[in-house]
């Protein structure tokens, strides 16, 4: 397995935000994660990316234990992420945002050249905005920049946190296309998303998280159709 998180747990006092969650993805895999708001999905990402320390559990990347590494070291080791709330460097141009990420986030992999960064921007439909200060982008463009910046660090595992919300059908289609392309290059994708149809178009496995625990994982259609998930998600009584 490329990324293997085993028995992850995070508590704030008596509140277990993430409770004994294990997930694993191999190169080229795409795992979708759904769950109600506040279920601990984003915290799970924080644990994997290293911005929050787990109380329990281990994380291995390509067999190497990275549980003790800082977020920066994990980024260099190959864990890329896009944040749910976009945080571009507003004073830099869109292109410069990618350059900085490429130069300092790639780690041992050779840093992406400027032309590669431009290629990412083109692929995500941001090419024409390359020289615009990122602070002038609208929300949807900022979300795409989050994804582009994550890609510029040459990730082996890419964590996507709700990037499809609010897109038009056409925009959603092109986003799905872009993520499929990334996957084809052998990047493992873990994607938290409420826009289920976008998720289903990409992932081959689906995990459901509720109250911090993973309650189901498997074939997306089967998992989503299961009574347990319908109950949590749609409030259908058992």
């Amino acid at each position, binding site marked *: 397995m490329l990324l293997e998180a085993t028995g992850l747990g995070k508590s704030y006092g008596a509140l277990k935000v993430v409770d004994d969650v294990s997930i694993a993805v191999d190169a080229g895999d795409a795992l979708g994660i759904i769950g109600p708001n506040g279920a601990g999905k984003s915290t799970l990402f924080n644990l994997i990316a290293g911005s929050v320390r787990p109380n329990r559990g281990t994380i291995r990347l390509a067999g190497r234990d990275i549980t003790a590494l800082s977020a920066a070291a994990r*980024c260099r080791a190959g864990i890329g992420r896009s944040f749910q709330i976009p945080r571009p460097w507003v004073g830099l141009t869109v292109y410069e945002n990618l350059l*900085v990420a490429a130069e300092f986030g790639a780690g041992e992999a050779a840093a992406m050249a400027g032309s590669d960064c431009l290629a990412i921007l083109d692929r995500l439909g941001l090419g024409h905005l390359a020289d615009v200060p990122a*602070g002038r982008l609208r929300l949807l463009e900022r979300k795409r920049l989050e994804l582009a910046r994550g890609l510029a660090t040459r990730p082996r595992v890419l964590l996507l946190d709700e990037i499809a919300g609010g897109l038009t059908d056409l925009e959603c289609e092109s986003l799905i296309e872009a993520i499929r392309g990334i996957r084809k290059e052998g990047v493992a994708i873990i994607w938290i998303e409420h826009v289920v149809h976008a998720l289903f178009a990409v992932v081959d496995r689906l995990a459901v998280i509720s109250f911090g625990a993973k309650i189901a994982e498997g074939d997306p259609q089967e998992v989503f159709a299961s009574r347990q998930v319908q109950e949590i998600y749609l409030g259908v009584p058992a």
Partner: protein
Amino acid sequence: MTDLLNAILQGVLLGGLYALFAAGLSLMFGVMRFVNLAHGDFIVAAAFGALLLVDMLGLPPLLAVVILVPAFAAFGYLGQRLVLNRVMGRDIMPGILLTFGFSVMLQNLMLEGFSANSRRLNAGWLDTASLPLGPFQIGFVPLLMFTTALLVLGGLGLFMSQTNTGRLMRATSDDAQIVGLMGADRRHLFAIATAIASGVVALAGVLMAIKTNFDPSSGSIRLLFAFEAVIMGGLGSLWGTLAGGIILGVAQGLGAAIDPGYQILAGHVVFLIILVLRPQGLFPRQRP
């Protein structure tokens, strides 16, 4: 009329020196959100350093720059790595207290070492050399100050926009947390910023030593000038800092033309007026 124009011209040139005072402060605040209260005292320390090298060892003033700038830069790098990085964080108070302590220590060390006498660096022929420009005389030293400021700020601008380290500094200034998550080493980056700022401080100190009298306690007023230039220009904007320096220089020049006693006061008054009318400064960095 000629007197007035001359006052403005001399004020612009003096503004170059103020911009040099302010550049390091502006850079450090921009990248680290960190205010060095000992900034002015470091400038004065550089001036005394130049005095030592020139008066006692007989080096020419320009050679003093060649020695002091790298020495200050190295000192700045180490100081940031070993001391200042420990007080970097969300709370600005520890940094302010620490550098205030530096300020007190430096002033007293200089007082101990150089006495309270007002000093000046003798630059020989440089002191009196001037270029005629129509009805005006442009002194070599003021001209040197102004061109140095242009070169330093222009160089910094290029560094910020064209190099990876410079871009990373701007990114850090925007959102330091994300920079950390992206895998960059902030401790090193901060130290580079302080090294550059300290090198500029050395340059400003040597030029000040040639231009004006100074004594161990004259750092505070330099810090004030630097603050005024940075704030008038707009926080985080390098060219704004030059503009702020020039405005301060011209205001002081015009004040002095009315009455020599008004020089410093005129600068502060103009600063207050700008602060009231445009608190974000003249060229604030875009923050959409």
